[in-house]
């Protein structure tokens, strides 16, 4: 704790792009021009009605927004507590919330006169979303992906290639998401003059955490309105999974000034006591990763530790700086959900509601089910169902094979 205070006092003189102590611009000098230019371009775009109209028009007519809010009657009854509502980001084009941000950032890149786009991807969802929007606008697209992930996520690699993107396997480091981001940053540094880097989550140097939040807040803005229409009041709680944390920030932002309890589910992997997890807030320390000061899974010397989760979209060793700030202030509450708890929630949602969520989203659902149990039936909890689970069927199949059938696990008669 003393170390923490010492670090904060050392760092507090630098205030640009901060959420309290967190955030900032810890990037090499070769990238400073690019992040400053991006900040300027973003500020201009957000004050341009034509730009915002085009963003909304594409999300409406291409991605199918607004996505619905679904009341899970049978699941709520089974859990026995608050009414569970889902914000259905799984119904977006490409099957996840990632498209909201990809549309926004690619539009911004075009507005800034960039000729090419690059992106990083872990599980492949953000890579697919970026490749999709790049195809829509006819822009060349390069996606950096850890070599290990390329092997694990063959289907999404194929989808990106089909969309005309070049997938660059990254073998440096551990060959996973953090290494893909490192390599994308290196490539961007060498090609800043004509290339835009489309970051997939609320991470990275300022202004990325802000940009991604603003292009994802449509999730919460829509859901807030829809909850008012359907239930006549605000939800009592809102819940989402957190890797970097883009769908969670997208949901939370609409409710920050409301009396709505906010919950974030981190990936607890095989249990936070095992060392095999991605529970950054539970087990990390303040550090610097990918240009941002935030909580970070690291060893005692400051070397970054490779996280683990059954869900490839949550195994990030850092967390968005605004989440770190919301956790510190107590405005949002973060808890770890294990692989097993996520799988149980996934099975329950299939059985009760006929919806297959992504493994990532199942973490958010699992935490919401836990919280619903402690709430009254006249209360409501809104969950961001960030993506659909078709991409995870192979992983789920392996796990459920190991534990007999899904029917038994869910306890559903």
């Amino acid at each position, binding site marked *: 704790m003393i170390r923490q205070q010492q*670090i904060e006092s050392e760092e507090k003189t630098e205030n*640009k792009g901060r959420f309290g102590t967190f955030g900032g611009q*810890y990037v090499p*000098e*070769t990238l*400073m021009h690019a992040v400053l230019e991006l900040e300027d371009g973003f500020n201009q775009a957000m004050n341009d009605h034509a730009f915002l109209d085009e963003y909304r028009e594409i999300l409406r007519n291409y991605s199918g927004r607004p996505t619905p809010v679904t009341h899970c009657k049978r699941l709520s009854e089974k859990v026995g507590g608050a009414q569970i509502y889902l914000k259905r980001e799984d119904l977006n084009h490409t099957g996840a919330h990632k498209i909201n941000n990809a549309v926004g950032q690619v539009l911004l890149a075009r507005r800034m006169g960039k000729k090419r786009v690059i992106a990083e991807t872990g599980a492949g969802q953000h890579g697919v979303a970026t490749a999709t929007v790049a195809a829509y606008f006819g822009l060349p697209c390069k996606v950096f992906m850890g070599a290990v992930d390329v092997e694990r996520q063959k289907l999404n690699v194929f989808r990106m290639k089909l969309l005309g993107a070049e997938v660059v396997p990254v073998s440096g480091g551990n060959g996973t998401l953090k290494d893909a981001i490192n390599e994308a940053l*290196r490539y961007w540094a060498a090609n800043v003059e004509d290339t835009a880097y489309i970051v997939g989550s609320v991470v990275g140097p300022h202004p990325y955490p802000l940009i991604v939040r603003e292009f994802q807040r449509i999730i919460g803005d829509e859901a807030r309105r829809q909850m008012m229409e359907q239930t006549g009041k605000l939800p009592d709680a809102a819940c989402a999974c957190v890797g970097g944390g883009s769908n969670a920030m997208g949901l939370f932002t609409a409710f920050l000034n409301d009396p709505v309890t906010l919950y974030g589910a981190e990936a607890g992997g095989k249990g936070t006591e095992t060392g095999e997890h991605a529970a950054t807030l539970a087990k990390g320390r303040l550090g610097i990763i990918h240009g941002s000061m935030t909580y970070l899974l*690291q060893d005692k010397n*400051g070397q970054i530790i490779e996280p683990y989760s059954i869900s490839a979209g949550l195994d990030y060793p850092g967390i968005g700086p605004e989440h770190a700030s919301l956790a510190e202030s107590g405005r949002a509450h973060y808890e770890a959900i294990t692989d097993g708890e996520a799988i149980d929630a996934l099975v329950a949602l299939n059985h009760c509601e006929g919806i297959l969520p992504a493994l990532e989203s199942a973490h958010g659902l699992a935490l919401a089910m836990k919280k619903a149990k402690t709430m009254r039936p006249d209360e409501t909890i809104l969950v961001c169902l960030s993506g659909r689970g078709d991409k995870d069927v192979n992983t789920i199949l392996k796990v459920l094979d190991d534990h007999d059938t899904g029917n038994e696990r869910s306890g559903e008669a």
Partner: protein
Amino acid sequence: MSRMNEYVNKERGMLFIPFITAGDPSEEATVELAFMLQSVGANALELGIPYSDPVADGPVIQKASQRALAGGMNLHRALRLVKKIRLRGVEIPIIVFTYGNLLLQLGRETFFREARENGIDGLLVPDLPFEESGSLAEQCKANGVDLISLVAPTTSEKRLEAIGASAQGFLYCVSSLGVTGVRKTFHPKVLSFLAKARRACDLPIAVGFGISSKDQVGALKGHADGFVVGSRIVSLIEKRAERLKKAETRAEALTEISNILKDTLLGNRKVVKKGERSTQNA
């Protein structure tokens, strides 16, 4: 006068500032490599601290980091290794090159104490740009350590002026965009960029990123006061890593590296010594 100003100044001819990674391939090898680099005419030494996520570095230095990490190197050990380098007879200034997170975890107080005790003259944090470095620059001044700043061809004139005015030690000019690593060509605007850097800063300006040949160094003459060489040297080390690790083959491997550097990069430079104000290293 600080050791940095004594060895790294505009009257010393073309300044040569080599980079090696601490603990690559072993502590003993690092000590001997540092001594060898002084003997081929280095004006200062950049000692890189291995990091799991070196975002400013190309593949050669990334691999060096991994070799050094596998041997258990970390920032604290590297700072203490400098004492052994000093005992071996290395008198030129030593600049610790470390990513921000390693420094954050060690703590600044510990860093400056070790810097004082082990004879460290400079600090370079590649992912701490000017805007984030205010309080560290002040602490560096108070502790007699020069915080080395970088500027790039894409750095705006306004920022170049601000960075140049507050620079310490020397100004590190990045010759090309991207990451560290050997390249054939510089950024097309490099010469006009160096001219701007000179106007913005009274200290010596040294060019780094991608320098590997005599021709490149020759092309910089009259435009810069010095040059930094990292990946070229680290790749020579990589090819001889096993021999550098073993005591019985180390001397031979060091001689090879020293000869290659003289033939392809440096020519016959004099050893840079304290007090000799007019060492004309070309």
